[in-house]
C-alpha cells in the first residue's frame, strides 16, 4: 500500500518541512537566534503529526493511506510480538474451526432441508430403527399402514442393504461408464414425497408392461445423456440386463428419500424379479422387504402416528421424521435424530467458543497492558484517544479477518478429510452433503468479530486518558485494583468454562472405559463369529438342482467346520449366531408374542434363538443356575427367568415358543442378547436345534461361534477357509466379539469422541489463557515482591505469596463453576442414563 500512497505522503511531509524552514528563516531574518527561531517556528506550527493526520484524514485516499499505515503498524507489531499474534490466531482458528466442523456435521445430519415437499409431514415407519433390516414391510404390510387412516399416502422402497444385498439392482447404462445406484420403489413413491418430476411418476402398469422397462432417472444422469431434458424423456436406454425407457426425470438436488442416498435410477418394484436374475414366477413382488414412507394425513402429527401405531403391534413400533433417517442402498438405516446429543453438542460447542473468547480477552488484555507506555507516549505526542481506539480496533479487525480466514481454511480441510473417516456409529460421512454454505462463513466471521469486539470493547472502555497517562510513570504491567479484579474474574470464568467442558469430556471418556470393560456375558477377547450365505435366498432353484446344491454345500460346510477346528489356537466351534446382532434385536422388538409355559399362554417379548450343541461352552457364557443343556433343552437368560417365573426357580419348567413342542428349561445364563446398549434382555436358547445341514437346508446361511486364543490373528485364516469353501457365496463375514461390541456401542463412542475432542480443545485454550494471565499477574506484582524481600520477608514467605497470587484467581473458578454446573446436569443425566443401561 505504501507505494500507492507514498508520493502523496512524502509531498505533505515536504510541504510541512518547507513551511517550518521558511518560518524559521523569517524569524532569523527578523533577528532571532537560530535556536530560538527553530523552537518558536515549531511551537507556532503546532503538532506536526496532528496536522499531517488531519490533512490525510480529510480525503478518501488519505483515509486509505492511513489504513495502509495502520496495516503496516499491525504487521510490524506482529513481527515484534509474534507470540501474541500467533497465539490469538491459534485460539481463534481452533475455537472457531472446531465449531464450524461441528456445525457442518449438525447441518448435514439435521438442518439441511430435505429435497421433498413439506418434509415435516413425511415419516419413515419401521419396526425398529436399531435393527439393520428392521424397517422391512411386505406389500400387504404397506396396505395395512394405508388402512390406518393416519397417512395420506404410503410408499415403499425395497430394502437392499445387509441381508438383502442380493436384491440390489445391478443396472448399467452403456452411455455412462461409472457405477450407478438404483432403487426399487412403489408407484406412489414420488407422489408421497411430493417430488415434481419432468415426465410422470410410475403407474401400476409400469411393472406389468413388457420391455423396455420404465425408469425414472436423476438430474445427474439426465445431464450426461445427449439432448435436453425434453429429448431424454421417452428415450430408450441401452442397459444391462434389460433396456430401459425414461418416463421421468427427478429435479436437481433429489437423490433419494433418505439422507445419505445417491440414487441415479428408480425402477418399479414389480420389475425386481427380472433384474435380480431369479425365477420371476417363484418370487412374487408382494413379499419383497420394503422400507415404508408415509405422508401424514392432515391433522395427524408424528406423535399421533407413533402412539396410534404402538397400539397396533402387528404393524409397527417406530415412526421417525424423514429428516432424521440416514440410509443408502448399501448401508443399514440409522436414525440420526437425537435432540439430546444435538443440544449437548451445541452447548459444549458454545462453551468452547466462550472459552476461546475468554482466552482472547486474556491475551489482548495482557498485550495492550504491556504496550501501555507506548500508548502513553503517543498520547503525550498529541495522538487523540479516538485515534488510538481506532488503531486498536483496526488491529483487532485485521486479527479477526485473518482468524476467520484461517478458521474457514482449517474447517474446510477437516470437512474434506471427514468423508475418509469411518465413524464408529457406522455412519458413512462420504454419503453426507458436507459442503459448507454461507451460514458457515457468516458464523465464522461473527464468532471472530464478536470475540475480538468483546475483548476490544473492554479495553477501549478501560483506556481513559488518565489511565493511559499512568503508563509514562508506571511499569509496563500495571497493577491497579480494577485490572487485577478484571484479570481474576477472567481466569475464574475461564476455569469454570473449562471445568464444565472437561466434565462432559470426562463423561465421554468414562463411557468409552465402561464400554470397553462392560460384560456382555461371553468371552469378548476370545470369540469370533463367522457367517456364510451359501446361496442367494431370493433366487429360488428348481427342486432337483436345489437338492444337489444343498447336498454339496452341506458337505463343504461340514468340511470347513472341521478345518476351522483344526486351526492352531481354536478351542471350540459351535453352530449359532452372534448374540449381539440386529437380527436378535429385531426379534426382541417385534412386539410381545404368545409363549406357552406351565402357567398357560403368556404374552412376553423375548428372543427365541436356535443354537447348536456346545454353543454356550464356545461362548464361554457363565451359568447362573443349572447346566448348559443338551439337544432339545432350553437355557434362558436371567431377565427371562425373572419375567416368566418371578421369585421361582425356572429350572425344570416347560417352555415353548407357541408352535414347537414344550421344552424343558435346564439352565439360566447371564448373557447379553440383541444389544448391550439396552438392559439385559429376555431370551431363550434352544440347544442342538442348529446344525450345519439344518442351516444349509433352511436359509442357506451358516453361522458359527468360534472360541480361539487369538481371534484377531485367526480372522484372515478363517475368512480364507470360508471363501475357498464357498467361492460363489454372496456373503462371507467374520467378526471378532470385540468388533461386535464396537459396532454395538458405536453411537455412544461417536458422542464420546466428540466430547473428548471438545474437552481437549477447551483444555488447550484454558492452559493458554490461564498461563498467560497468571504469569502476567505475578509479573505485575514483581516490584511488590522485591520490596517485601528488601523489607526483610523470607524467601519462603515471598514464594508462598507468589504461589497464592497464581492460585487465588483459579480457585474462584470452581465457585462460579457450581453455577454453570446446573447447565451441565442435563448432559450428565443423559450420559449416565446411557451408562446405566450399559452396566445393567
Amino acid at each position, binding site marked *: 500500500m505504501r507505494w500507492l500512497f507514498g508520493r502523496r505522503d512524502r509531498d505533505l511531509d515536504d510541504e510541512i518541512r518547507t513551511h517550518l524552514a*521558511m518560518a524559521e528563516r523569517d524569524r532569523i531574518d527578523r533577528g532571532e537566534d537560530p535556536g530560538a527561531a527553530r523552537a518558536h517556528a515549531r511551537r507556532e506550527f503546532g503538532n506536526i503529526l496532528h496536522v499531517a493526520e488531519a490533512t490525510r484524514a480529510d*480525503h478518501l485516499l488519505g483515509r486509505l493511506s492511513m489504513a495502509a499505515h495502520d496495516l503496516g503498524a499491525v504487521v510490524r507489531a506482529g513481527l515484534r510480538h509474534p507470540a501474541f499474534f500467533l497465539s490469538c490466531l491459534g485460539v481463534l482458528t481452533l475455537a472457531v474451526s472446531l465449531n464450524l466442523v461441528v456445525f457442518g456435521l449438525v447441518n448435514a445430519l439435521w438442518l439441511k432441508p430435505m429435497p421433498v415437499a413439506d418434509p415435516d409431514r413425511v415419516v419413515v415407519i419401521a419396526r425398529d430403527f436399531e435393527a439393520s433390516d428392521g424397517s422391512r414391510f411386505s406389500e400387504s404390510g404397506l396396505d395395512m399402514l394405508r388402512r390406518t387412516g393416519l397417512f395420506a399416502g404410503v410408499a415403499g422402497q425395497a430394502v437392499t442393504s445387509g441381508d438383502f444385498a442380493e436384491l440390489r439392482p445391478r443396472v448399467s447404462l452403456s452411455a455412462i461408464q461409472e457405477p450407478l445406484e438404483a432403487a426399487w420403489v412403489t408407484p406412489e413413491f414420488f407422489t408421497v414425497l411430493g417430488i415434481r418430476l419432468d415426465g410422470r411418476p410410475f403407474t401400476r402398469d409400469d411393472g406389468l408392461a413388457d420391455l423396455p422397462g420404465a425408469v425414472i432417472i436423476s438430474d445427474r444422469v439426465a445431464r450426461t445423456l445427449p439432448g435436453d431434458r425434453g429429448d431424454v424423456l421417452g428415450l430408450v436406454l441401452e442397459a444391462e440386463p434389460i433396456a430401459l425407457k425414461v418416463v421421468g426425470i427427478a429435479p436437481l438436488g433429489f437423490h433419494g428419500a433418505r439422507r445419505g442416498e445417491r440414487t441415479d435410477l428408480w425402477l418399479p418394484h414389480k420389475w425386481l424379479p427380472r433384474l435380480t436374475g431369479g425365477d420371476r414366477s417363484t418370487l412374487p413382488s408382494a413379499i419383497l422387504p420394503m422400507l415404508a414412507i408415509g405422508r401424514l394425513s392432515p391433522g395427524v402429527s408424528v406423535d399421533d402416528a407413533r402412539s396410534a401405531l404402538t397400539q397396533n403391534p402387528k404393524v409397527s413400533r417406530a415412526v421417525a421424521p424423514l429428516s432424521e433417517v440416514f440410509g443408502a442402498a448399501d448401508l443399514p438405516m440409522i436414525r440420526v435424530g437425537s435432540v439430546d446429543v444435538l443440544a449437548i453438542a451445541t452447548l459444549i460447542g458454545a462453551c468452547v467458543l466462550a472459552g476461546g473468547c475468554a482466552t482472547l480477552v486474556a491475551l489482548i488484555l495482557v498485550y495492550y497492558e504491556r504496550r501501555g507506555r507506548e500508548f502513553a507516549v503517543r498520547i503525550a505526542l498529541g495522538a487523540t484517544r479516538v485515534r488510538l481506539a481506532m488503531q486498536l480496533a483496526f488491529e483487532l479487525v485485521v486479527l479477526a479477518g485473518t482468524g476467520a480466514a484461517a478458521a474457514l481454511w482449517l474447517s474446510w480441510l477437516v470437512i474434506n478429510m471427514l468423508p475418509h473417516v469411518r465413524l464408529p456409529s457406522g455412519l458413512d460421512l462420504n454419503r453426507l452433503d458436507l459442503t459448507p454454505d454461507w451460514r458457515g462463513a457468516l458464523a465464522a466471521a461473527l464468532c471472530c468479530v464478536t470475540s475480538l469486539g468483546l475483548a476490544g470493547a473492554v479495553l477501549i472502555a478501560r483506556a481513559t486518558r488518565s489511565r493511559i497517562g499512568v503508563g509514562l510513570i508506571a511499569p509496563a504491567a500495571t497493577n491497579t485494583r480494577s485490572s487485577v479484579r478484571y484479570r481474576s474474574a477472567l481466569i475464574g470464568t475461564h476455569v469454570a468454562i473449562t471445568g464444565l467442558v472437561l466434565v462432559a469430556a470426562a463423561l465421554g471418556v468414562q463411557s468409552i472405559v465402561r464400554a470397553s470393560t462392560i460384560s456382555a456375558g461371553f468371552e469378548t477377547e476370545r470369540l469370533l463369529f463367522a457367517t456364510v450365505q451359501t446361496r442367494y435366498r431370493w433366487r429360488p432353484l428348481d427342486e432337483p438342482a436345489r437338492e444337489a446344491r444343498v447336498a454339496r454345500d452341506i458337505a463343504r460346510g461340514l468340511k470347513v467346520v472341521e478345518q476351522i477346528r483344526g486351526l492352531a489356537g481354536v478351542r471350540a466351534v459351535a453352530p449359532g449366531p452372534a448374540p449381539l446382532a440386529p437380527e436378535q434385536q429385531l426379534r426382541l422388538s417385534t412386539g410381545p408374542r404368545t409363549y406357552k409355559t406351565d402357567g398357560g399362554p403368556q404374552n412376553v417379548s423375548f428372543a427365541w434363538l436356535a443354537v447348536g450343541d456346545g454353543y454356550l461352552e464356545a461362548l464361554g457364557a457363565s451359568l447362573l443356575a443349572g447346566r448348559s443343556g443338551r439337544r432339545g433343552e432350553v437355557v434362558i437368560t436371567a431377565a427371562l427367568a425373572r419375567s416368566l417365573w418371578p421369585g421361582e426357580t425356572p429350572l425344570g419348567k416347560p417352555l415353548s415358543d407357541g408352535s414347537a413342542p414344550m421344552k424343558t428349561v435346564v439352565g439360566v445364563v447371564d448373557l447379553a442378547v440383541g444389544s448391550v446398549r439396552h438392559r439385559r434382555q429376555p431370551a431363550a436358547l434352544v440347544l442342538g436345534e442348529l446344525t450345519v445341514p439344518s442351516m444349509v437346508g433352511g436359509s442357506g446361511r451358516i453361522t458359527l461361534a468360534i472360541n480361539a486364543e487369538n481371534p484377531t490373528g485367526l480372522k484372515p485364516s478363517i475368512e480364507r477357509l470360508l471363501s475357498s469353501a464357498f467361492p460363489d457365496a454372496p456373503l462371507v463375514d467374520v467378526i471378532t466379539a470385540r468388533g461386535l461390541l464396537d459396532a454395538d456401542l458405536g453411537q455412544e463412542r461417536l458422542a464420546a469422541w466428540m466430547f473428548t475432542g471438545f474437552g481437549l480443545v477447551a483444555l488447550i485454550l484454558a492452559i493458554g489463557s490461564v498461563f498467560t494471565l497468571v504469569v502476567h499477574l505475578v509479573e505485575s506484582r514483581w516490584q511488590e515482591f522485591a520490596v517485601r524481600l528488601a523489607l526483610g520477608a523470607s524467601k519462603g514467605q515471598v514464594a508462598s505469596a507468589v504461589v497464592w497470587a497464581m492460585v487465588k484467581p483459579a480457585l474462584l473458578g470452581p465457585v462460579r463453576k457450581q453455577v454453570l454446573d446446573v447447565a451441565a446436569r442435563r448432559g450428565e443425566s443423559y450420559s449416565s442414563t446411557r451408562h446405566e443401561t450399559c452396566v445393567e
Partner: protein
Amino acid sequence: MKARYQTRIELLQGTLDLLVLQTLQWGPRHGYGITQAIRANSGDVLQVETGSLYPALHRLERQGLIAAAWKTSESNQRVREYRLTPRGKRELASSRSRWEQLQAAIAGVLNPAKPRA
C-alpha cells in the same frame, strides 16, 4: 476548553476558504506565504492555525478551486505553490458576494438606521 475550541472552528468554518481564495487572487503562494499574507492583511488579527490551513488547502485542491505545483523559490527552495483556478475565481466571486451580503446584514442589525422623525 472544548467549548472554546468548537467556537473557533465555527468561526473559521467557511471563512477560511474565502480567505485562502482571496489571498491566492493576488497571486500564487505556498502554504507559509498564505498564512503570512492573511496575518499581514488582517493586521495580525487573524492567525491561521496550520492544523486548519493544510486540510483546507488540500480540500480546495480536491474541489478543483485551486491547483498546486512544486516550484523552486527565490531562495532556491523547493516549495509547493498554490494558484487559483478559473473555477476558484468564480467561487471566490460568489463567496465574496455572499460575505458582503452577510456583512451588510450584520452591520444593519448592529447599527440600525434611526427612524426619521
